[in-house]
């Protein structure tokens, strides 16, 4: 080949045709594989540890620390050491600390996209131990502008709290002290005069009575007068009822009597109508008076609550004293339940109907679809930890407890394995003087509604500096005591909760202080007389509204202790309120009732009297009509007989007799 200039051109190198396999991709792919291996070998554990710490902080709301974390892809192993979960209430202490958690994931399961663990070991458990440095606590989330105002859930919670507060006065001993102190409530009563509902209603009734009584009087005046009824009687007497000379005379008399009867009937109807109207009005007013009675009772009850007049019965005393003692435990339980509801996979536990459907406009999320599990006997569910062995040996230096336990079948699909999750723990924490701890729990998700049941007891645990009552008037605390506790309960569909709790507190050193000397003495004597303080609680209800029945041997003792001193004062205070109500409402109410009864009596008497009069006149007219008719009948009958006799005589004569 030559160019136009004649110089030879270099031969064009034909590019080598490439085959369908891209061999040059092998090196980049190898690099990617090496980099991936390097990441998992050198960095993954660190990142996973940080990720778990962050996740724990977000979920629990307090700092979570992990000292060491090791994973192995080939062995499918996981090991976590030095887990510390800060107590969000006391950041300088750990809620729980676990020395070692380790497990191996079955490759057999991983190849089937399932997470299956044969046995997980949890060791060196510490509870409520101090931290080296205080842990971070997550601040409460700020309220978004559009979320201001309580949510449906908060409203429910507030309602439940409000109800509780109304039912159980939480400072009953302070109120008893106040009663004993004998503070005057007269001034306060003067201030609330305008707020009495019964007084308002009374005013309304009085106004209504003034208006109605005029109408009633007018109606009474419009009733037929006795003179008018007597005139009817005279009219009846004047009408001829016998010795009629002709049938026309009889018809005339009958017409006159009929006219008088009709007139009497009209008057009767008028009387009846007026009577009915008056009676209906009177009944209405009577109803108003009954309402007034109910309002008086309500006002008395409200005033008793307002002036904190305690109910001096054992049950009420126990409820009021121990409710604040139990409240923190219940709050914590509600917190954990909320956490479970928020973070548990929806198909695992959220089977109960929500309290209120949340309607929000939001963009359509990427649909998740439905994930089916085609299980068969002995198949693996998506997540299954067959056994968690918990063991811990007591060590005074580490502060660990003697704990042994077993948790079985933690799984995403209990139906597939046909078993519920069970947990049993047993042990002592000598460093914390806790002994005889036993816990048995079952999480059963085999039926439509999940059911979590538990049975736990602690044979002995110390109570040090635990306040029972803290108010400006009275403070009672367990300075030092030994306690034991037993509790059983079940939570269905994460909503319906029922439990029983028995708490026995013995060898107690109380710290009792009351401003009022009498109260101080009574309290000291009562508590001194109790060798063992018992507390029995029974709770039942749909969360968060939980009905609690609290009983304690403290209640009757306190009742007995306070009865003599306080009962008189309470009765006095109640009487004061009763008198005040009587003064404000009672007199006017009695006056109104008397007037009303007078009018009612007048109406009843007048109507009855007139009715009787009219009845007699009506009967008289009817009697006369009947006698006139009878007289004429007799006369006609006699005429016929005479005619017959006459005819018979004539016939005899004709026949010759």
């Amino acid at each position, binding site marked *: 080949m030559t160019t136009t200039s004649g110089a030879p051109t270099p031969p064009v190198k034909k590019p080598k045709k490439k085959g369908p396999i891209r061999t040059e991709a092998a090196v980049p792919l190898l690099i990617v594989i090496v980099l991936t291996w390097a990441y998992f070998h050198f960095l993954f554990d660190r990142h996973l540890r940080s990720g778990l710490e962050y996740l724990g902080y977000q979920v629990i709301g307090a700092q979570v620390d992990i000292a060491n974390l090791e994973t192995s892809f080939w062995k499918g192993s996981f090991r976590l050491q030095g887990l510390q979960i800060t107590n969000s209430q006391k950041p300088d202490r750990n809620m729980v600390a676990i020395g070692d958690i380790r497990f191996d994931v079955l490759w057999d399961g991983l190849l*089937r996209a*399932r997470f299956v663990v044969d046995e997980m070991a949890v060791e060196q458990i510490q509870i409520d131990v101090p931290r080296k440095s205080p842990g971070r606590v997550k601040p409460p989330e700020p309220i978004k502008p559009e979320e201001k105002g309580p949510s449906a859930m908060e409203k429910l919670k507030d309602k439940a709290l409000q109800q509780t507060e109304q039912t159980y006065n939480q400072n009953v001993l302070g109120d008893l002290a106040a009663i004993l102190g004998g503070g005057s409530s007269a001034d306060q009563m003067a201030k609330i005069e305008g707020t009495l509902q019964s007084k308002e209603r009374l005013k309304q009734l009085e106004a209504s009575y003034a208006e109605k009584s005029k109408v009633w009087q007018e109606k009474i005046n419009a009733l037929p007068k006795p003179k008018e009824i007597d005139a009817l009687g005279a009219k009846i007497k004047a009408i001829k009822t016998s010795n009629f000379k002709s049938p026309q005379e009889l018809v005339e008399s009958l017409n006159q009597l009929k006219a008088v009867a009709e007139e009497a009937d009209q008057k009767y109807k008028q009387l009846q109508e007026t009577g009915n109207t008056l009676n209906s009005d009177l009944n209405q007013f009577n109803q108003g008076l009954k309402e007034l009675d109910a309002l008086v009772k309500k006002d008395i009850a409200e005033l008793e609550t307002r002036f904190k007049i305690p109910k001096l019965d054992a049950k009420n005393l126990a409820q009021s004293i121990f409710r604040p003692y139990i409240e923190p435990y219940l709050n914590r339980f509600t917190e954990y339940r909320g956490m479970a509801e928020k973070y548990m996979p929806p198909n695992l536990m959220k089977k109960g109907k929500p309290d209120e459907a949340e309607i929000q406009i939001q963009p359509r999320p990427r649909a998740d*679809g439905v994930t*089916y*599990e*085609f299980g068969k006997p002995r198949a693996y569910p998506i997540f299954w930890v067959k056994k968690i062995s918990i063991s811990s040996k007591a060590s005074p230096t580490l502060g660990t407890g003697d704990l042994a336990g077993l948790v079985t079948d933690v799984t995403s699909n209990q139906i597939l394995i046909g078993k519920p999750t069970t947990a049993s723990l047993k042990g002592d924490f000598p460093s914390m003087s806790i002994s005889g701890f036993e816990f048995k729990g079952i999480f059963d998700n085999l039926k439509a509604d999940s059911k979590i049941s538990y049975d736990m007891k602690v044979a002995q645990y110390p109570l040090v500096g635990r306040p029972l009552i803290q108010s400006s008037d009275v403070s009672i605390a367990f300075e030092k005591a030994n306690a034991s506790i037993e509790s059983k309960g079940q939570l269905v569909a994460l909503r319906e909760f029922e439990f029983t709790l028995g708490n026995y507190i013995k060898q107690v050193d109380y710290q009792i202080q009351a401003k009022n000397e009498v109260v101080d003495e009574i309290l000291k004597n009562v508590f001194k007389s109790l060798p063992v303080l018992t507390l029995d609680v029974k709770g039942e209800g749909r969360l968060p509204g939980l009905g609690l029945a609290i009983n304690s041997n403290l209640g009757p003792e306190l009742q007995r202790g306070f009865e003599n001193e306080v009962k008189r004062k309470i009765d006095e205070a109640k009487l004061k309120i009763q008198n005040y109500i009587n003064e404000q409402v009672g007199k006017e109410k009695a006056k109104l009732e008397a007037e009303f009864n007078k009018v009612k009596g007048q109406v009843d008497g007048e109507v009855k009297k007139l009715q009787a009069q009219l009845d007699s006149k009506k009967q008289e007219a009817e009697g006369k009509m009947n006698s006139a008719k009878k007289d004429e009948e007799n006369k006609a009958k006699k005429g016929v007989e005479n005619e017959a006799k006459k005819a018979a005589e004539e016939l005899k004569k004709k026949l010759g007799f």
Partner: protein
Amino acid sequence: MTLILKQIFAFFRMLNSETGSNQLAWGLALGLVLGFSPFLSLQTFLVLLICIFLRVQMGAAFLSAFFFKFVAFLLDPLTDFLGRKVLESEALRPAFVELYNMPIVPLTRFNNSIVMGSGLLGFVLAIPMFFIFKRLIQQYRVTVVARYKGTKIWKAFAATSFYKWYNKYEELYG
């Protein structure tokens, strides 16, 4: 990222050239399968391996995957319905039980209604779409590219030293 961008530029260059219509069409068809599959699944991994080891235009596959991901999102209700119908089919139940309990296969997440529906749709459409894409590429080259290259502007640009330099660079370094 550079690698992906390089592949995307290569896609446009190849689209406007006269070769590699099969590579482009395969790239787009496999991209469709990628778009219809969940990111973390066995089938995605396998299709990616095919894209890497077979001479498929990867830029086309990435662009196509990006585009069909949106299409798959819009088709979610349809694929969900389709997946449910298939997964709830009594006739297929024994097969699914076996597959579900076999190693490796569950990594495809076939037991999810959307994955099953969109997977079916993706694989069924891949072959016909290969031919459609091929035809469209050829049509594009005949109608758009040829007409564009005949314009004076293009001819003027092709005569510039920058264009010659760019051509030389492409010959040497691809």
